[in-house]
């Protein structure tokens, strides 16, 4: 076995195990942490295959941002992050059967079609990728940038709670404090109530 094959097998085993733990772990935060391992393994596979830039992009985007965002969301919603969350029931036969069938089908397909195929590994410098990305793929690339911007705006619009919209606390005669509570907004850092405008700050200075 050559060095790339050993590395490939090792990352594959680690990544596969981590992926299994992602979907079977009882604790959602643990799942997210296992997802980190699985995605790092994917980056390792990219490295072996010679796609260096894609590998680092995988680390930057997924490990550095996506999983952090997931964990952040988990902690921010204070959703059940304990071991017994809602809807974490496991052991359904159906999903297992479907997944096994998919896996078996795919493996059979792969082995029959690519059983003897051998990859000639080559290293692609990022410069080469940059050249095709900004020349041949320029238009799709820009479209993608547009999509990302839209997604960002959409996410902000969805997660944002506007004034007066959404579940406002009902004035409760028994609990006068509840009526005073300002609509909480846990998605963005809320302004303090008596936030002075820049002009007012000037005056008070």
């Amino acid at each position, binding site marked *: 076995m050559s*060095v790339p094959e050993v590395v490939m097998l090792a990352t594959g085993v680690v990544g596969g195990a981590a992926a299994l733990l992602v979907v079977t772990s009882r*604790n959602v*935060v*643990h799942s997210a*942490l296992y997802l*980190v391992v699985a995605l790092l393994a994917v980056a390792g596979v990219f490295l072996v295959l010679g796609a*260096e*830039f894609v590998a*680092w*992009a995988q*680390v*930057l985007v997924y*490990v*550095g*941002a996506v*999983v*952090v*965002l997931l*964990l*952040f969301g988990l*902690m*921010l919603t204070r959703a059940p*992050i304990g071991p017994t969350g809602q809807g974490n029931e496991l052991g359904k036969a159906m999903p297992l059967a479907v997944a096994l069938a998919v896996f078996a089908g795919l493996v059979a397909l792969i082995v029959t079609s690519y059983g003897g195929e051998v990859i000639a590994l080559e290293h692609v*410098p*990022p*410069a080469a990728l940059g050249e095709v990305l900004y020349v041949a793929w320029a238009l799709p690339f820009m479209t993608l940038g547009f999509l990302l911007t839209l997604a960002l705006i959409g996410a902000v619009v969805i997660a944002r709670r506007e004034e007066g919209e959404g579940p406002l606390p009902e004035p409760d005669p028994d609990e006068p404090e509840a009526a005073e509570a300002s609509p909480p907004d846990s998605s*963005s*850092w*809320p*302004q303090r109530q008596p936030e002075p405008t820049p002009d007012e700050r000037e005056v008070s200075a």
Partner: protein
Amino acid sequence: MATSVFALEPLWLALLLQALAALLLFLIGAVVVGYLEHKVLAHMQDRLGPMEAIWHGIGQLPADGLKFLQKEDIIPTAADRWVFALAPAVAVVPGVVVIAVLPFGPGLWLTDLDAGIFFALAASGVTVLGTLMAGWSSANKFSLMGGLRGAAQLISYELPLVLAAAAIVIQAGTLSLPGIVEAQHGFTLFGVPMIYGIPHIIGLGLFFVAALAELSRPPFDMPIADSELIAGHMTEYTGMRYAFFMLSEYAGMVILSALATVLFLGGWYPWPGVGLPEGAAGMVLGFVITFAKILVLSAIMVWLRATFPRMREDQLQRLSWSVLIPLGLLNIVLVATAKVWF
């Protein structure tokens, strides 16, 4: 691919040596910067700082390390044991990995990746996972808030950091760190050899501010704000695990200072256009120059700590999203325009 002094055969020996060298550099860098912080801060505050451990207290940090080793390793009952135990390691490992691609002199790097700067930024972003893991697993509300603040801060400051670095990449035309140093060596501004830091003053400022925020250094130290959150995600940690977090903070200072040195201050060359002697003398001189630049930048970080109060969380977010990121985008447009023009 550029050659490295560690290009040895067989492969495993080279890898082992590289790993050891990275670890050593990591520790030395962290200890030196830690000592620098003790002393610079002390003198700025009209006091002496550590004086007893050997000469002028230079043995203070190793002594602290020994003390940390002896301390009891406490894991709170309600903590999530595995995550709690792993978090300090997750905080430290990216630093060690990034050290491997940093050039400390001509030929003095462990490996020269084609996408060096991209790799360094990607890997250093992983550090926040350690913060989040520590914050969540400690079963402490202050820790959780510290972890959340750390994550929010990192997500918003990763962007200006990458944008500032991207402008330099456009200028230099390469992602490789030694490549950027060499490109900078040949850079002239209206015929005068110039470091990138002068025409890219916006980028330098952006990079430095974002680096401070990434490292949770004052004035952006809300995740560990001692007067608000005790010590944030580190509240429940003791002994060696706590020391790991401190190490990763100081090593982070070294790493980001080194990156700023490479990107903006001309790397191991004293000034673009001024060469170094060939061979070992050049290596030593280059190492000294690089390290001096790193120490100056670290000292500025310490200086800011001595000067500034802490910002507030919402002010920090506003600064990033409404000042730094637009500025970073503008910077890229300016640099690209200038690059095409000239």
